[in-house]
């Protein structure tokens, strides 16, 4: 084929230019350390790298969440173990108070110690997580869970359980709401705990239920229904506030007695001066301790008084056991969560490593290969340049002298 002079220069020039651009690209790869300079270099790899980098970022964020959860749960764990040791002290005090040889003032001294345990428990229940959020209020973390009341303490939080996302499909519960830990002491299987006075003589047994029509009047206070000597009229006293709720009212068996949202049903006739004490079946530990403190502060001189004291102490003992069980359950849950977090941390670290490895295999440049490619391209370029100079120097005009 006939070659024109232009072809020689054009083709030579464009070949050198192409070689220069591939050399430049290799040099850029070496300088940046990455195989992928633009998505065109590896479309699938670029897309995968983007998705993996999101997974990495998520992994890192979950690690942050787990740290937060671990902090919260560690504080909770500490508080709960403190609570359970306080409960053990309370139990010891209650047991020691049952000693028959104690005097009223001895018991009063025990009551004071018990008061100290009560204050400790109250402040533990109102613990915060260090940033000012209450641990045991459920979702209402700006409201203190327990406030002291006449009959113990009232729960002001809600029943929500907070969670944190600890891994892609794993939500870890944070500290539980206070009512499950400090409350939830079931003293009877019904809605109310009715304790007939040990000195009762009649055959009446009492059960109490919430009266749906007046349910809004429920106070949670402890009441006492006392019959008069003839058993034909009764008085209802609020033992917590000390007020008379229902003054002397006539009673004929087997009628119901309704007061303050409670519907009391009596079977059989009450005896002379029989009395029944009614408290909500579900109590919290503060109510239990307050009841025990009140019982210990009551002077006992009569046999009836002693029987009341024994009954009160027995009830307190049972309640504290139930409370301890609740606290242990909560503790176990916290322990499980902490364990789970530790496991997730291990998995998270492993995932992080795996992601980094994958990312590196997609993106990172194989330096050995790149440098050898670079020197090969360099050689080719040099050869092209030298040969071009040689060929372009060949001209007939060089030989036409004169």
């Amino acid at each position, binding site marked *: *084929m*006939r*070659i*024109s*002079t*232009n*072809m020689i220069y054009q*083709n030579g020039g464009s070949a050198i230019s192409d070689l220069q651009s591939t050399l430049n690209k290799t040099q850029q790869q070496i300088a940046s350390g990455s195989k992928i300079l*633009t*998505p*065109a*270099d*590896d*479309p699938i790899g*670029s*897309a995968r*790298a*983007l*998705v993996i*980098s*999101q997974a990495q*970022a*998520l992994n*890192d*964020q979950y690690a*942050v*969440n787990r740290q*937060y959860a671990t902090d919260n749960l560690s504080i909770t764990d500490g508080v709960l173990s403190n609570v359970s040791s306080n409960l053990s002290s309370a139990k010891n005090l209650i047991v020691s108070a049952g000693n028959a040889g104690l005097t009223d003032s001895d018991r009063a001294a025990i009551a004071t110690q018990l008061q100290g345990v009560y204050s400790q428990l109250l402040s533990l229940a109102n613990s915060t997580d260090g*940033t*000012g*959020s*209450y641990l045991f*209020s*459920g*979702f*209402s*973390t*700006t409201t203190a869970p327990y406030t002291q009341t006449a009959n113990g303490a009232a729960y002001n939080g*809600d*029943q*929500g*359980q*907070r*969670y*944190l*996302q600890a891994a892609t499909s794993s*939500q870890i519960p944070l500290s539980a709401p206070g009512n499950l830990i400090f*409350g939830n002491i079931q003293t009877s*299987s019904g*809605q*109310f705990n009715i304790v007939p006075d040990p000195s009762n003589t009649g055959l009446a047994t009492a059960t109490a*239920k*919430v009266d*749906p029509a007046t349910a809004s009047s429920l106070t949670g206070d402890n009441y006492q229904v006392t019959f008069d000597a003839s058993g034909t009229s009764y008085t209802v006293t609020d033992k917590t506030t000390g007020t008379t709720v229902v003054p002397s009212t006539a009673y004929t068996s087997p009628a119901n007695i309704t007061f303050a949202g409670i519907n009391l049903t009596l079977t059989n006739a009450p005896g002379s001066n029989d009395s029944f004490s009614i408290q909500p*079946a*579900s109590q919290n530990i503060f109510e239990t301790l307050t009841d025990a403190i009140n019982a210990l502060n009551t002077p006992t001189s009569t046999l009836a008084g002693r029987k009341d004291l024994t009954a009160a102490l027995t009830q307190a003992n049972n309640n504290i056991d139930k409370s301890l069980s609740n606290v242990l359950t909560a503790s176990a849950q916290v322990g499980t969560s902490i364990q789970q977090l530790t496991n997730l941390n291990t998995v998270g670290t492993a995932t992080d490593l795996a992601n980094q490895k994958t990312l590196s295999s997609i993106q990172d440049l194989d330096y050995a290969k790149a440098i050898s490619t670079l020197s090969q391209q360099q050689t080719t370029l040099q050869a092209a340049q030298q040969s071009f100079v040689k060929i372009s120097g060949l*001209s*007939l*005009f060089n030989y*036409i002298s004169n």
Partner: protein
Amino acid sequence: MGTNILNIGQSALAAAQMGITTTGQNIANASTPGYSRQVLLQSANEPQNIGGTFVGQGVSISQIQRQYDQYIAQQVNSITSTKGQADTYLSQINTLNNLVADPTAGISPALQSFFSAVQNVAASPNGTAGAAARQAMLSSAQSLVGRINGLQGQVAQISSDVNSQITSTVTTINGYATQIAQLNDAISKAQSTTNGSVPNDLLDKRDYLVTQLSQLTSVNVVQQGPQYNIFIGNGQPLVMGTTSNALQVMQSPTDPTRVEVGYTSNGKTVQIPENGLPGGTLGGLYDFRSSMLDVTQNALGRVAVAVATAFNEQSNLGQDLNGQPGSNMFSISPVSSVPNSNNTSTAQITATISNVSALTTSNYSLQFTGGNYQITRLSDGTTQTSATLPAQFDGVTFQLAPPPAAAAPANGDTFLIRPTANGASTIAVAMNDPNKIAAAAPIATSAPSTNTGTGKLTSGVLNSVVASGSTSASTTISAVKTDDSFNPSAVTAPITLNYSGGNLTGFPAGAAVTVTAGGVTTNYAAPATVPYTSGATISVSGMSFVLKDNGTPPANGDQFTLSSSQPVATTQLTYTGGNLTGFPVKANVTVTNGNTSTTYPAGTAVPYTSGATYSYNGVSFSLSGTPANADVFNIGPNTNGSGDNRNALLLQKVQTNNSMIGGTTTIQGAYAQFVSLVGNKANEVQATNTSETAMLKSATDAQQSVSGVNLDEEAANLLKYQQAYQAAAKLMQIASQLFTTLLTVGQ
């Protein structure tokens, strides 16, 4: 006889001189682009009969012939067009390629840090730590929006570059056309004054202009006598003889932001359709614009729309720090819908995005023709035809703008709808008060301590912003599903539907109603009176629900209401003998246990099943265990739970939900697919470019082989003609000597 020799010598001299001149011309123009080498053709003169013998009369120049192959030239021109197109496409797509190349400069890091900020709010929703986390979330939302806006700004810059390139290309084409017309004139004039010999250099110039024109757009040359008629595209005449028809740049009738090419006819500018101008720079720009630039803008917009829509919807289901229902975090512009400027009616189409998951990156064209609405997906030409609007296609709901905005469409009217094109430029943060971030759920549940059973209640969730109720004893209304086009303000005032005589009335003013029963969809224009069919799905204003009866149709006067599910009404449920009572009046409770769902009419007792989920008025909770008779369960608003992070946990799931492309991938995944598309396309165009370059090289080589100047060859020709000249001069010298000899004979 001597004079004969002199004549011969003189003709030889002239021929040799002309030969050197021609060689000189070739050497001088060796580097002139478009130059075809010229070759001297000489022929012997007619012999003369002198005394019975034919004696030669020397040489004459027949022609200086241009070495030019028309067919090779056509091939070069056509390949120049396709290569020009590939070149332009490649350089444009490389700008996109570089735009998305750096992963740290793209959308991904901004998305990730935004969702990290959401997780931090979930960890600290309130208090001092919460205030800081919330402010950080707002700031990272601003960064995200800024990054998206910025990327879109760069895409818009590329788009306006394309516009200016089209304009300048058209100017250049017009320039060439004028020059070619002038050359046509000059060439035909030149040829008419000689006896058929051609002005080679003018021809070279014209052919070179045609090649340069081919680089801009593909041309078809028809030779008419000495003149070239140039046609571009599908037969549009550019140059006819000595007149050139200028192309015009005009605003696109379908999209005011872009320019198109047209021609003037009868005083009006008529657009040449884009597929009517293939090849060259112009073809490359069109191809890039419609297949990559639009896709890029739509893909970025789709990411913006997905983030904004999912986030806003979940925010609306939550509660902020002030105890108010969550408001929108992002604002984004509505779908772009432009009537073609050639439409004869003033009808407008309103399009809304009703299903983000089904969105594509294509634009749509809606045409009203033959009484039907035909919607075309422009990326692949798939169509869907409906007799009435509203119609849904690819996650977009198309409907006629309600009066008095527009009239009915006329036959042939078309509209260009671009669902996600404006998403990336218009997304903005609509919230500036960190307390308005809806981290909490608006519902709280509790069980009083007087309960004696073991019934356990979950904390509840709000899963619809619309609460539905029915007063009918026989007919229930299902939970209301809202699509992505639903605006909560539609139920600020409750909507009450009345049943009477087999029909439902009371739909919102101006809203069309769609009823789907047994696979058949019917549209009712506003104001709608909709016939009642049990089990049919009714859709209006982005809400859809099912009315179902138990065999007895509703009674006249029965009402069905749609209202806002927030604030959550305080409800006290009581468990008695295996049933739950106390649900709000008019609420139809749906009990879901495993795969079965049953809806109970208002006022009926709802049976209790442990582990089942109960839904009513948009609220949903689950009850398990064994309650005792008279046990009470409270469901109500979340009045004090500022440490509640339930909605924040759901907000952070927006990042990991497979909410895009038919539910197959996340938002980041959809963006990654787009980046991959750019990379693939760039690769493909690079490969095309490489092969076109090789083909052009081989065609050019063939052309150069015929027309190119080889300096060595010319050097040899110089020597040849120089020797011929010397020989001819010698001949004349000898002829002169002969004559002198003759003269001295007589002395």
